[in-house]
């Protein structure tokens, strides 16, 4: 299956560093940053990261789409599956900066306070106050 695909699968050789540089011999595969920058957007677009009509509401007649597996993305982009996995995992965590966490705290405080004060008729409108934390 996909987990057994041979190393070096794909055609992105220009971005590949040597197996030693890539950490393969140590069992700790780190994607090349240039390869990451080159394919980050393309890989994310094929995953579940930002979903448009990837959902169970749609009929299973071909209308319903799903995010691709890393093996399927590797095939489509001609990359090594392990590079695809690393690009995806890094990119998913790299999508929003740390400031997003501060915004998240303010959002939750404001949303909960608004709802507790007035229910659905008083939902948070997207202008969070300074965080309480």
């Amino acid at each position: 299956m996909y987990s057994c695909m041979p190393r070096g699968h794909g055609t992105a050789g220009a971005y590949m560093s040597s197996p030693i540089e890539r950490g393969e011999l140590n069992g700790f595969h780190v994607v090349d940053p240039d390869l990451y920058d080159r394919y980050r957007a393309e890989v994310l677009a094929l995953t579940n990261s930002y979903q448009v009509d990837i959902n169970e509401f749609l009929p299973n007649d071909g209308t319903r789409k799903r995010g691709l597996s890393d093996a399927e993305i590797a095939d489509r982009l001609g990359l090594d599956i392990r590079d695809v996995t690393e690009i995806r995992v890094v990119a998913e965590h790299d999508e929003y900066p740390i400031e997003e966490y501060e915004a998240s705290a303010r959002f939750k405080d404001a949303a909960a306070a608004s709802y507790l004060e007035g229910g659905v008729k008083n939902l948070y409108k997207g202008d969070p106050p300074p965080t309480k934390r």
Partner: protein
Amino acid sequence: MMDELDWVSIKSGILEMARKRGAEVARVGDPALLEDAEPGLRPSDLLTGVKSMIVLGGAAPRAAEWQSPRVEVMETVGTADRMVALGSSVARHIEDTYGYYALNVPTATDQDDKAFLDFKAAAIAAGAGSPSLAGPVLDPTYGFLYLTVILTTLPLPVDGPLQEAACPAPQCVEMWDEKGTTPCMAVCPIDDGGCLGGEIQEGLVIKRRYDEDRCRDRVYHYWTPGYQAALERALGEPDARKRKMILYGSFFTRTMWSITYSGVSQGQCFECIRACPVGTEQRVLI
């Protein structure tokens, strides 16, 4: 001898046991319905010869937790671990009693930072809820529940998906007709810094959009993603004194506490579900 077993009675006994031990919802789904899922997230990838998929839902936050003015309460108590323990107990019961394989699917993260199984799809296939605009599977009575899935070679009769979806609720259809939004989308709009988008047409959800990355950062706020983000900031800070302020500061400290408290799924954002009318009765007491 196994051919003589009464599968209906066995199923009834297993599900009743799960309910007595805390499951609000206990159903059986056909694992074959998940064969169109992404490779690697299919039941047959985890257990060869799987015949049935038992889905248990429960351990929702308590009403008082929903009502607490301190969001930090919900950020801390929302966890799947009670359902995980129940699932393990049911799996052990099946293997010990009937001699069939039973695997409680790990709720933790697989090697590629993915789930072991599409839990939502499993719950929907079993009728342990239906999909929602907000994202979580919703039980018509209880709303949001934590899930656990037991895959087994025991050939139990399946329940199948719910005939009537919990989402969109009638109140949401009404709100959509009036305002062009729903409670969950209004509180977390994808086009205005949130995670959720979509439309309702003739009572059905269409054109759903979902920003999984932002949602994860909120749900796992003080957890692995937050830890990684803060650590990156600390490692990139050349001033040792400032670095210390980051590493010993409140965000990093709370994140470390949160990570080390729990080895299973932990939810830290509930605002779309707080506004959701499905299961409201369970969240409001006197």
